[in-house]
Every structure is written in C-alpha cells, then in structure tokens.
C-alpha cells in the first residue's frame, strides 16, 4: 500500500476539488447500488405484490383522473387515457425522486456524523430508487398501449433521450431539495403540496394543444411542462417531439442539475455540523 497524505483545512464556501471528488464518488458506486437495493427491499418492492402495488397505484390514479376528465368534459378517448397514464408515470419518476431525496441527508445523520464520503451519494441513491420504481410502470404502459391500439413508429425512440433528460432533472431536484432540507427542515412538510401543484400545472390532466397561447407562455416557468409534452408526443402519439420544447426541457434539466450540484457540493462539508 502506498501512503497517501490527506490534508484537512478550514471550510470555505466553494467547490471541493472536483476531480478528487468524482474519483471518490466513482470508487463508491457499489454503495449507491447496494443502498438502493436495500431501500427497495425494505419497501418490499422486491416481492411480486410489492411490484404489483407499484404499478397498480399510478394505474388506479390514472383511472380516477380519467373518470374525472370524462365527467367534466363529457367525452374522452383512448389517446387521452394513454397520454394521462404515460405522463403520470413519468411524473412519478420525478416526484419519487423528490420525495425520496428530500430526507436523504437528514435521515443519513448517523452515517454522515461518523463516516467521510461524498454526501451526494445519498440523493443519487434516491433517484436510482425512483428509477427502479419507474421501470415496471413503463412496461405496463407499453402493454396498455398495445391494448389501446395506438400507432407505432420509429419516432417513439425519442422517448429514450427524453427519459434521460427526465432522470437528470429528477437527480438535480433530489440533490437540491436534500440540501435545502438541511437548512429548512420543514421543506419536507411542504413537499407534498409542491408535488401536487406541479402535477396540476403540468400537461398531464390536459394536453398542451388545448392550452391558450397566453397560458402556454406562462408555462415556460414550469420545468416539467415541455418535458411531459415531448414525452407524450413521442410515446403516445408516436411522433417527433417539437425540437423547441425538447431543447427547453434539456436546458431546464441542465440548469437545475448544475445549480443544485453547485449548491450541494459547496455546502456538504458543513452538513455534519448542521445535523
């Protein structure tokens, strides 16, 4: 073994050496895998019924919303139902990432107080858990799609980059909110309302085409708006998404991720004292 020298000096707000940090993070990637697996196991999602519940929950929800739309508008069709389901599932990926991430630092207190490791591993694990919860719902969606007899085309492959953008956004949000929660513990209590509002403001219960241009302009400020729109275009309508909205969602995701990561990394050495 070679002797490495580590030097600890006073904390200054600012980024730690990024190269060393990433190397540390990479060398602990198994922790992320193991932690996510343990978390899923603990929530019983490794059993058949656990997975069934995972799928059933958003499916029931989409059924309820479908009914709601039907009652309010008096009519509906299968495309609409597919749109609702697909968007709800993707929304849940981000929502789960947020709600799993919010307490990831504060509940890891014991570990943080006693072990030195890149703290960002904890919110990353939350997003990985959200991803594993998302995968079975995606499978269900494609079964549903066949049952509803929706069209197919190669354009549906746009779903892959859109999913990656959604993951980046979910990760950025998890990192941001876990850090905020260290300083403002009640953000965890507000979170359900925030998620609910996002749900109603996003094009899930309605489609973008039904929106007036004035409202559409306003929706630029909803990070999920163009993302869900593109997602619906690709996987429901099997057509290419609008490049403008795809770009917009990419910018949103990158901005949230960079902002959150900067915020997190520049403060994480302070966490052990704050918990």
């Amino acid at each position, binding site marked *: *073994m070679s002797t490495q*020298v580590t030097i600890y000096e*006073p904390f200054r707000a600012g980024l730690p050496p990024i190269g060393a940090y990433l190397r540390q993070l990479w060398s602990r990637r198994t922790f992320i895998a193991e932690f996510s697996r343990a978390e899923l196991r603990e929530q019983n999602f490794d059993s058949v019924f656990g997975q069934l519940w995972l799928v059933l929950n958003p499916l029931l929800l989409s059924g309820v919303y479908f009914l709601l739309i039907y009652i309010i508008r008096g009519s509906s069709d299968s495309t609409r139902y597919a749109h609702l389901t697909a968007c709800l599932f993707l929304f849940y990926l981000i929502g789960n990432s947020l709600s799993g991430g919010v307490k990831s630092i504060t509940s890891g207190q014991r570990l943080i107080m*006693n072990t030195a490791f890149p703290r960002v591993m904890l919110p990353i694990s939350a997003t990985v858990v959200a991803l594993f919860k998302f995968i079975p719902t995606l499978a269900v969606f494609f079964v549903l799609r066949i049952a509803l007899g929706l069209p197919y085309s190669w354009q549906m492959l746009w779903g892959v980059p859109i999913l990656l953008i959604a993951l980046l956004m979910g990760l950025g949000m998890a990192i941001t909110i876990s850090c905020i929660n260290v300083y403002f*513990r009640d953000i965890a209590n507000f979170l359900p309302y925030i998620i609910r509002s996002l749900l109603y403001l996003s094009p899930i219960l309605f489609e973008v085409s039904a929106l007036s241009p004035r409202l559409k302009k306003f929706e630029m400020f909803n990070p999920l708006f163009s993302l869900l729109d593109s997602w619906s275009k690709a996987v429901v309508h099997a057509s290419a998404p609008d490049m403008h909205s795809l770009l917009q969602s990419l910018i949103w995701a990158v901005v949230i991720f960079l902002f959150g990561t900067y915020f997190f990394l520049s403060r994480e050495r302070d966490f052990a004292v704050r918990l």
Partner: protein
Amino acid sequence: MISLSVSKSNSQNSTHAKHGLAVSISNLSLIYKTSISKRPTFKARLKSIGRGKKHTRVVNAINNVNLEVHYGSVLGVIGSNGAGKSSLMRVISGIIPPTQGKVEVHGSVSTLLALGVGFNPSMTGRSNVYLGGLAAGMTRSEIDSRFEAISEFSELGDSIDAPMRTYSSGMYARLAFSVAATVEPDILIIDEALSTGDAHFKEKSLNRIKELRSADRALILVSHALATIEEICNEVLWLDKGKIMMRGKPEEVVAAYKEFLNVGKSASSNEDV
C-alpha cells in the same frame, strides 16, 4: 513524545516507516455554531426576520490543539463528557472541517468511526455492515471476505439478519466494534465502542485491540475506561474543554486525570474490565 526520525512519508512506496508520522495536527480549533431553536425551519426563519440578530450558541469544542501521532503507537484519549474527544476524532477522519489550523493524515484512516454502523435502523445488521463498509470506501469483495469474521466476532448469531432497531445498545456496540476491528486500516480510531459491551465482550475486544497493535498501524482509542486505557496504550492524551491538559505516559496522565476528577478512590470508576 519521543519522535524518532519524523520521515515525511508522502511518496514512499511501501509500508510506513517505523515510527513515521501518522497524524499531524497544528493549531487546530473547532467552533460549533448552532441556532438555539432546535430545528432550523423556514417558519422559524420567517418569524425571526424582524428580530435583528440571530440567536446562536457558540461552542468552542477544540481549542488550539497541536498533536502528532506516530505509526506503531497506541494513543489513548481521555477527558470528561463534552471535552471534545469525539469532535477531535471527527476532524481527524475528515468528517468535520476544522475552523482553524490544519490536519495532515498520512495513510488511510478507518473513517468508519464505529457508530456509523447501523445508521439505518430499519435495515438488517447485515445490510448495515455492508452499507457502512461501502460508504467508508471498502469494496464489496473486501466486505464479503470479512463478513464471516465480523459476524462471528460479534457473536450475534441469527440476529445479524434482524432489523437493527430490534438490537439492544450492547448489540449495536458489538457489531460496531466488530466492523471497526476487522477493517484493518492504517489508522484505526475507536471512539467509545468499548463501553457498552458486557464483560465477556469487553475482554474479547480488549484482546482484539492488543492484536491490532503493530508497527505499521496507529491506534487511537477514546474511552472512559481508564484501566483499559492504562493497560493498552503507550501514550495518553487528556483533553478538557477542548484543550490539551496533559500528554505522556499512561500511568501519569491517568493518575493526574483521576486526581482532577477527584474519583481516585471511589469504586465505580474502577469497574472497567
């Protein structure tokens, strides 16, 4: 105290020079600033907006400490509750950044202070051992190869697969110590893992620590068990209110500390192993 040929061992290829420097601390201070309100919340922040200055409590946990620990030595750290022992260990392992001064660590520290094991009480002991080890930077195969030894040493039997919230505090301590003692880092820090075990386990862990003493390892032992400290350490550091009161031969420092505490003759203080 006797610093033999302090070789700066940065770029040496193989194991540490005997009596090489393991930890070097200069002018270290650590100040905790905590708000008086128990939980920092958005609501509390809003309420205090009009009120001018923030109410914070300032604790000077470590106060201008200079210290060198060499390979091959076993350093005992004693001091009353709140003296800053755990804080000092956290700074050495890089968990808390110092407020002032500098810490140099040569070699790998078991940053897994024993208490890190079991951070998630709803998971099993087994999961917690793996997660704690992985977080501290071990690889899965390293833990795989040591898991048997860990679970055997802890003597937890089937409980290792039970959620840790069902453990007694002694069982926690057993598992924590077993992990810390099996990892075999260059610098091993054991903070108070010895105190809650029963007599049998105390004896066993004491023997384990004696086995762990070797020329190319530095051991730092924090404990209130003065007799233990006196027995296994070759150097003792006494901290009080964040300052070094004394450092030197175990018997002398422990005697001075006992005198300071005025418990020299009472029975309860001699009850450790």
